[in-house]
């Protein structure tokens, strides 16, 4: 399979949908991240489907530890949680400021 993927690359095609993908995985000691290449079957955008979540893996959760308060933890300890209205407003403000700075510097 690898030579076929290489040939596709040589022809200038993206290999996203037909080859091994690099994945970050936690090593045994959970301190470092290993990059491993796994051969995967292509995932495509299905008509009635949803995009495949970006680089995240859901850890099974225990009944006792359902993540109602902090959101669902990622394996690296990061937590996906909704922003509060205040946080969202702050973020938008920061983004707008950054845009103004960018525009000014372009001028």
């Amino acid at each position, binding site marked *: 399979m690898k030579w076929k993927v290489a040939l596709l690359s040589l022809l200038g095609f993206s290999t996203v949908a037909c080859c091994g993908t690099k994945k970050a995985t936690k090593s045994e000691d959970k301190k470092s991240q290993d990059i491993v290449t796994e051969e995967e079957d292509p995932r*495509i955008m*299905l008509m009635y489907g949803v*995009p495949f979540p970006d680089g995240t893996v*859901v850890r*099974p959760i225990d009944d006792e530890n359902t993540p109602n308060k902090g*959101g669902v933890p990622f394996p690296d300890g990061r937590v*996906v949680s*909704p922003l509060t209205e205040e946080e969202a407003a702050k973020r938008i403000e920061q983004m707008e400021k950054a845009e103004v700075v960018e525009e000014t510097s372009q001028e």
Partner: protein
Amino acid sequence: MKGKRLGLRKYLGLKIFKSIYDGVVERHRLRTLFWECTLRCNLRCRHCGSDCRTDASELDMPLQDFLDVLDNEVTPNVDPKEVLIIFSGGEVLVRKDLEEAGREVTKRGYMWGMVTNGLSLSQERLHALVDAGLRSVSVSFDGFADIHNDIRQNPDSFAKAERAIGYIRQVEGLTYDVITCVTPAIIERLEEWKEYLISRGISHWRIFSIFPAGRAKRDDKLHLNAEQFRSLMEFISRTRKEGRINLNYACEGFLGGYETEVRDHFYMCNAGITVASIRVNGDISGCTSVRGNYAQGNIYRDKFWDVWQNRFTEYRDREWTKCDECSDCKVWEFCRGGGMHLRDDKGKLMYCHYNMLK
């Protein structure tokens, strides 16, 4: 405007990809599992492929029935983190136990996502779903208010979908896209619509066009003609080159010279190959978009995993599609008769994307 020719480079690429895809079919690893948890819907869209109604005659599937299939049939045979579960409808938000369903699925190690029209997605509900492990969400957004509301047959649907997208964008780490069903009404305004989406900070956009199934079959005003379809392909190709928004045409059909220009990948129909669905009545099928009679079993009669491993021959060996207009088609080897959703109950092809582009 004439269709795009399949040049030598693409022809060679397709030949190579074909042999890679043969391996995918042979392995038929389950990667996506749809759960059609309801056929109830809070809208009555003109283009609905499922012909959903607010008073669906089919009852929702009890959550426990789906979980039993996961626990007894799926989980022992797959690595849950490799299988994406998609809650599908109808409109999934009409189910009051969606959060519970999400939690149960997450607890078992699966990622899950949902498709919604956004009409009843409040910020509180979204937060509850995120807490229940929601990882990815797609929202239907069919054009400016006049177009969207007309298709959705609800004067509030545009405003509420837009509001829902705003909430979704505020959730850090949540994967999302918006889906536009392109009809003749929006085709002339696609550039304008693109700018609107970009101005709203939307980064991922998916487009599909109508295929003649469900309610859409009876509404000619929703169908693109050949000229419009070609201009849609040109638009997508152009937009992707601009790189300002990540746009993909859905997996609908083989597109000849537009292959790899309007999607991230070569055409393939993965229904029954890496994708299965459990329909609201328990039927085991390929994608939920397959409305024809291609159920391979039923969870109330059969063992899901046995069905997945040993049936699905119509999906995995598509020689049978080599009939009618496909019988002497030069690109059949790449297209394999088009998507399964484009076949009617008798196996007849309802719509050929490639022919539209000739």
